[in-house]
């Protein structure tokens, strides 16, 4: 099972990155909003700070969603899980992990089509040739205020698809009993959250 151990190590590594990234992004959102509040006192509105805050928030949404899937704390209706016996619950968990993995793979594929790296290579990395050939304008779009190329921000989507897939596959390996389960939910939300049963999240 070296492959599955590798998967687990990869997932653990991504969790570490995601925790740090999430902290930095929340910090960025709060700091940028506060910066704007401060400047508002002098009748100055920093449109770029708002723009960056919204983009940082969007990033945090996808980073957090991937982490939540691994920790199994995203909201779901788990009534059937409580009603069935251990074998039934295991079957349900395996199907959930399978579906999540399949969705992750499809999302990777959709991002591949969207970013179309092969098409870009075929166009010799010339954006106007690429756009003429594909009618895909992802590389020329700009953010409204800062006028930065927006595809840099879109890169969170392939990253999200990749981490989601790795986490879902790791969950699948856990549910199949191939590797021991890791109680990530407990590590992320100790103390207060303990009282809430799994079905309530």
């Amino acid at each position, binding site marked *: 099972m070296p492959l599955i151990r590798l998967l687990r190590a990869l997932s653990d590594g991504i969790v570490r990155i995601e925790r740090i990234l*999430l*902290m930095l*992004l*929340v*910090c960025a*959102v*709060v700091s940028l*909003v*506060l910066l*704007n*509040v401060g400047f508002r006192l002098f009748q100055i509105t920093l449109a770029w700070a708002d723009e960056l*805050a*919204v*983009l940082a*928030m*969007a990033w*945090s*949404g*996808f*980073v*957090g*969603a991937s*982490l*939540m*899937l691994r920790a199994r*704390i*995203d*909201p*779901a*209706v*788990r009534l059937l899980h409580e009603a069935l016996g251990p074998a039934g619950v295991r079957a*349900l*968990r395996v*199907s*959930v992990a399978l*579906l*999540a993995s399949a*969705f992750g793979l*499809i999302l990777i594929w*959709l*991002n591949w*089509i*969207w970013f179309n790296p092969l098409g870009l290579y075929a166009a010799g990395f010339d954006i106007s040739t690429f756009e003429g050939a594909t009618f*895909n304008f*992802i590389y020329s779009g700009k953010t409204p205020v800062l006028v930065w190329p927006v595809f840099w*921000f*879109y890169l*969170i*989507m*392939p990253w999200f*698809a990749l981490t989601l897939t790795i986490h879902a596959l790791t969950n699948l390996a856990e549910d199949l009993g191939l590797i021991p389960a890791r109680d990530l939910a407990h590590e*992320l*939300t*100790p103390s*207060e*959250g303990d*009282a809430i*049963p799994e*079905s*309530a999240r």
Partner: protein
Amino acid sequence: MTLAAFLLLLVIGLPIGLILCVAALVFIYDTNNLVLLQSYPLKLFSSLDNFSLLAIPLFILVGELMNGAGITQRLVRLAAAFVGALKGGLAYINLLANMMVASILGSATAQIAMMSQVMVPEMQRAGYDRAFAAGLTAYGGLLGPIIPPSIVFVVYAVLAQVAVRDMLVAGILPGLMLTGLFVLVVALLGRRHAYPVGTRQTWPARLTALRDALPMLAIPLVIIGTILGGFGSPTEAAAVGAVLAVLIGLFYTRSLRLSDFPLILIRTGINSALVLFLVAAAGVFSWVLIFGQVPQTAAAWIQSVATTPVAFMLLVLVALLVVGTVIDGIPGLIMVVPILLPIATDVYGIHPLHFGVVVSINLILGLLSPPVGIGLYVAAQVSNVSPLRVFWVTAPFFLAACVALVVLALVPWFSLALL
């Protein structure tokens, strides 16, 4: 096929955000709109590219900071100081403390779990029935998502494209009305059952309790004041509230430490991602539905069943009570608003803010209705009593909430008067 896939995924317990994403894919395949696949990841991203959503991480941050600053106990003491000597004093304390906590937390299940740990043992020690204590706390927790700043309302405002401020204001009278009704029920029940009477506190003790809790109350007041007074957007108000909470936690209550901050940031990130990913998934889902003309089809069907706005509202009330039993407020909103709101506003001429208040409260009330209301289970589990017993003991509150809901649905004034 999409509906069947949707229900199947819901039953096996796939996370709701992923259900919406997968159902959108199934729908694209089903209706042979494969060209939509090209824009799928872009749509997922751009659903979050929305300024109003910034309020969500900030509101959650304020809640986390207040949690770290030891707020609940002080609020309970404050309520005890003033209404403790009434018959059924602790029951009123429970509701009042819940109302004050509600203005900060904004999530019903989290609030029920937190307040049950504080209030249920306290009430049992004073001689109340444990199931009643658990149930009462659960109903108090309902106030969380209604009294501003409420994250449920922010999400609705984003989905419905109305101003966040207006939505928060619209919730004030309904929240007060619900609190008032619950207080009335406690008073009426107190006549039949001999509720224990607490000790009367002296004025100096009351003033001490007030002084201890005052900074805690200042934070929601500053947030609500900033929003209502038009001094800043809800997002900015929450940012100011967060700074205030940090200052109070570090220097006044001294229960917040700098070493707590990484965990607070992570929890804020996760709890807001929970909402944000649902919003993103709902964005894709409703975008696909519009291409498939689903809202129009649903509207045609509903129009054939409900001919008047009143009939429509009543139909919605019953349907959402059922939806609410299995799904928490925000995921519930995200699933039903894209379909129901256009029908409510375009066909029946219902004000989007009025509709938002009713739908939100309706879904939240579903949390406490049997057989599967999640809020009921949380309260029962934390307090170690059977959920069904909790429900029966507190059935008068359920009836009161249903009456309030029907009144709110039929009389738009309560939601729109303060605007």
